[in-house]
C-alpha cells in the first residue's frame, strides 16, 4: 500500500493531530486551576474585592479552556483501542494501569469538584467553595502525573517482563513505573512548562488591558502573578529540560543525536545552532556550531564523547537486527529548537517584565505606583519612553501563545524522536496498529476529528477573545455575601441561582 495512506501513517497522523490539539488545553488547565485557586485563596484571606474579580475573570477563561481539554481527552482514552489494538493487546497489562488510576483518582476529582465550583458560589460556604478549586487543581496534577508515567514507560520501559506464551509485556513493578527517573523528570518538565504557559497567558492578557489603562487594579495584580509564574516556571522548565535531556542521552541516544543532527560521534561534541543537511547521505552541508556545548548538555562536561546518528544506528542494528533506527532527523532537529526557542523567548519576556515592573528593588521612589496605577516600566533609573513601553506590552501580548507552540513541538520532538519504536526497544510502531481497522475507517475518523477540532478551535478562541476583552466582571451582592450553610442559605426559595447554564 502507498506509504502515505498506509494505516500506520494515518493512525499516526490522527494520534498526532488529536494529541497535540488536546495538549493545547492541558498545560493551561493545569496552571490556571492552580492560579485561580491561588487568587481565590487571596480573596478568602484578605477579602479584597480585586482578588475576587480576578478569580472570576481568570476562572471564566479557565472554564472555557478546561471544557475543551476534557472533551478532547475522551478521545485519548479510547484511541489506543481503536487505532492501536495490537499495541493495546501487547502493553495493556502495563500501560492500562496508570490510565485506570488516572480515571478513577484524577478524572473523578476534576469533574466532580469542577461542577461544585462552577455551580457552588451560592451553595457552598466560602472556604468549602475554595477547597473545591484546590481539589480540581490537585486532580489536574494527578491526571498529568499518571499519564506521563504511562508515556515515560513508552520512552523507557521498566518494571515489566515479556510473557512469551501470551506474547505480551506484563507488569512486575508498578512502583518503578511511577517513580523511574524518566517519569520524575518528565513530570517535573511538563509541570514547569505548564506554569510557564499559564504565566505567559496571564501576562499577555494583563498587558493587553494595562496598555489600554483598563481594569488596572485587577490586571496589575494579575500581571505580577503572571510574571512570577512565568519566570519561575521558565527557570524550572530550563533546569528540568536539562536533566531530562541528560536522561534521554542515556536512554535514547538516537533521539538526542537527531535533535542535534550530529551524524558522527564527536569528542568533544558541539551544539548545533543551525544545520542544513542531506538526510539520505547522512551528513550536514551547512552547520553553525558552539564547540563542546553538546558534551556539556549530555554529560555535564565539555570534553566527553557523544555518539552520532550513524554510530547509534549501527549499534542499534547490532542489538535489534537489520533495519533503519533513525527518526526523521529534520523534525527532531527543528522540533527541539522550536521547543527551546519559543519556551525561552517567553521566559525572557517574563524575566524582563519582572525587572521592569519591580516594586521597590533598586527603584527610585518617585516611580513607585499605587494600586490603581499602571506600573512604570523602569529599565535603570528612568521609566521607558512611551514607545518602548508600548513595545514591551505588545511583546507580552504577542508572546502569549509562544509556550503553546513550544509544548506542541516538545511533544512532537520526543514522540517522533523515539521512532521507529512505540515502546522503545520493545515494540515498533508499525506492529502497533489495529490490523482489523480499514484504511477507510481511519481516514473517516481522522477527517471528522480534524474538521470538528478546527471548528471548535474557532469557537473557543472567539469566546476567549470575547471574555478577555470584556474584562473582570462587576461583583454582585450574592458574590460578596457567600452562603454560610451547605446547600445555600434559605433566604428566598425563589431566588435565581448565582450561576446557571
Amino acid at each position, binding site marked *: 500500500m502507498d506509504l502515505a495512506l498506509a494505516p500506520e501513517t494515518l493512525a499516526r497522523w490522527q494520534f498526532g493531530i488529536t494529541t497535540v490539539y488536546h495538549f493545547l488545553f492541558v498545560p493551561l488547565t493545569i496552571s490556571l486551576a492552580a492560579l485561580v485557586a491561588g487568587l481565590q485563596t487571596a480573596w478568602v484571606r484578605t477579602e479584597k474585592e480585586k482578588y475576587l474579580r480576578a478569580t472570576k475573570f481568570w476562572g471564566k477563561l479557565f472554564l472555557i479552556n478546561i471544557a475543551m481539554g476534557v472533551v478532547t481527552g475522551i478521545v485519548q482514552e479510547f484511541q489506543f483501542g481503536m487505532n492501536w489494538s495490537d499495541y493495546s493487546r501487547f502493553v495493556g497489562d502495563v500501560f492500562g494501569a496508570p490510565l485506570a488510576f488516572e480515571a478513577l483518582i484524577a478524572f473523578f476529582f476534576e469533574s466532580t469538584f469542577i461542577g461544585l465550583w462552577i455551580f457552588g458560589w451560592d451553595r457552598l460556604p466560602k472556604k468549602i467553595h475554595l477547597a473545591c478549586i484546590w481539589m480540581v487543581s490537585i486532580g489536574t496534577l494527578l491526571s498529568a502525573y499518571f499519564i506521563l508515567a504511562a508515556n515515560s514507560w513508552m520512552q523507557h520501559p521498566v518494571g515489566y517482563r515479556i510473557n512469551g506464551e501470551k506474547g505480551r509485556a506484563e507488569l512486575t513493578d508498578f512502583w518503578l513505573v511511577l517513580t523511574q527517573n524518566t517519569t520524575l523528570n518528565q513530570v517535573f518538565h511538563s509541570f514547569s512548562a505548564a506554569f510557564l504557559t499559564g504565566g505567559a497567558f496571564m501576562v499577555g492578557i494583563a498587558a493587553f488591558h494595562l496598555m489600554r489603562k483598563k481594569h488596572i487594579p485587577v490586571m496589575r495584580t494579575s500581571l505580577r502573578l503572571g510574571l512570577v509564574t512565568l519566570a519561575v516556571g521558565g527557570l524550572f522548565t530550563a533546569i528540568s529540560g536539562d536533566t531530562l535531556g541528560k536522561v534521554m542521552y542515556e536512554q535514547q541516544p538516537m533521539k538526542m543525536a537527531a535533535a542535534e543532527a550530529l551524524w558522527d560521534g564527536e569528542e568533544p561534541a558541539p551544539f548545533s545552532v543551525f544545520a542544513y543537511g542531506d538526510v539520505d547521505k547522512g551528513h550536514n552541508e551547512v552547520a553553525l556550531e558552539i564547540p563542546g556545548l553538546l558534551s556539556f548538555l549530555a554529560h555535564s562536561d565539555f570534553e566527553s564523547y557523544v555518539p552520532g546518528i550513524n554510530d547509534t544506528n549501527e549499534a542499534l542494528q547490532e542489538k535489534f537486527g537489520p533495519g533503519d533506527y533513525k527518526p526523521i532527523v529534520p523534525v527532531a532537529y527543528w522540533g527541539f529548537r522550536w521547543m527551546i526557542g519559543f519556551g525561552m523567548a517567553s521566559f525572557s519576556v517574563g524575566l524582563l517584565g519582572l525587572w521592569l515592573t519591580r516594586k521597590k528593588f533598586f527603584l527610585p521612589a518617585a516611580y513607585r505606583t499605587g494600586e490603581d496605577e499602571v506600573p512604570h516600566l523602569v529599565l535603570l533609573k528612568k521609566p521607558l519612553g512611551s514607545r518602548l513601553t508600548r513595545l514591551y506590552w505588545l511583546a507580552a501580548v504577542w508572546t502569549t501563545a509562544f509556550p503553546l507552540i513550544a509544548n506542541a513541538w516538545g511533544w512532537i520532538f520526543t514522540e517522533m524522536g523515539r521512532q521507529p519504536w512505540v515502546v522503545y526497544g520493545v515494540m515498533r510502531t508499525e506492529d502497533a496498529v489495529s490490523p482489523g481497522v480499514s484504511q477507510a475507517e481511519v481516514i473517516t475518523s481522522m477527517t471528522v476529528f480534524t474538521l470538528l477540532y478546527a471548528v*471548535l478551535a474557532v469557537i473557543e478562541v472567539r469566546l476567549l477573545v470575547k471574555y478577555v476583552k470584556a474584562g473582570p466582571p462587576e461583583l454582585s451582592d450574592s458574590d460578596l455575601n457567600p452562603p454560610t450553610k451547605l446547600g445555600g442559605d434559605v433566604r428566598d426559595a425563589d431566588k435565581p441561582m448565582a450561576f446557571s447554564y
Partner: protein
Amino acid sequence: MELHDVWFVLIAVLWTGYFFLEGFDFGVGVLTRLLARNRAEKRVLINTIGPVWDGNEVWLLTAGGATFAAFPEWYATLFSGFYLPLLAILICLIVRGVAFEYRAKRPEENWQRNWETAIFWTSLLPAFLWGVAFGNIVRGVRLDADFEYVGTVWDLLNPYALLGGLVTLTLFTFHGTVFTALKTVGDIRERARKLALKVGLVTAVLALVFLLWTQVESGDGASLVAFGVAVASLVAALGANQAGREGWAFTLSGVTIVAAVAMLFLTLFPNVMPSTLDPEWSLTVTNASSSPYTLKIMTWLAVVATPLVLLYQGWTYWVFRKRIGTQHIADLVH
C-alpha cells in the same frame, strides 16, 4: 472467585454506574425537545444536570481505562471492532460537553439554539448506540482466532442490537423523565410526571421483548432473576410515578437499569465477547485478562478509590438537592 472474575464484576459495576448516572442526563438531554415548551424550560432541564453531568461521564472513562488495564484483549477487540459506532459516540460526547459549557456564554439566540439542538442529538444518539453496542457484545460478533473483529459495521446493526438500542434510549429517557419530576418545581414537574407514564409504558414493552429475547437465547437461572427484578422495578417505578412518589420512582427506574445491565453481564459471563464464528475464538475472562499482579494492584485501587468517589459524588447531589424552576434561572449571560 478469582481476580479476573472480580474484575468482570467491577467492570459490570462501572458500566452500571455509567448507565445509571449518565442515563438520566442523556434522558434530560432528550427531554429538551420532548418536554420543554420554551427556552426557559430548556434551561431548567439543562441546569438540573449542570453540576453533575461531567462527573457522570467519568464513569465511562473509568470503565474504558479499567477495561484496558484488567482486560486488554477485550479493550482492544471492542474498540477496534466497533470503530465507527464508537467514533460517533465520541463525536457526540465531545460536542455535548462543549454545548453544556458554551451555550450560555453568548446572548445571541442563534448561538444558544444551535447548542440546544446539539444537546438533544448528542444525548439521543449515544443513548441509542450504547444499547446497540451492548446488544452486540451479548449476542456475540464475528471474531477470528486472533480475536480480531472481522465483521462489517452493517453486521452490528442487526435487529437484536437495534432493539437493544431502542431499549437504552427509551429507558434512559424514562429515567431522565422521573429525574426531572424529582428535580424540578412548577408546571414542568407535573408534565414530566405525565410524560413519564407514556415513556415508561413504551420502555416496558420494548424492554420486555429485548430481555425476554436475551433470556431465551443465552439466559440462565441468575439472569432470569435479574430479568424479573428489572421488569418488576420498572412496573413499580411507573406505579410510584403515578402515586406522585418521585423519589421512589427515580430509585426504581435506577434499579431497572441496574438489573437490566446485571442481566446482560450475567448472560455474558464467563465470556466477555463471544465469537459467533467459533466458540473457541470467544474472548473470556481468562484469555482476555491481565496478569494476576496487575489485577491485584487494580483491585487495591478499586477498593480504596471507589468508596471515596461514591462518597464525594453523593455529596455533590446532596449539595445541589434543591428543586429548580423557571424562577431560579437568571436571565443573564455568563
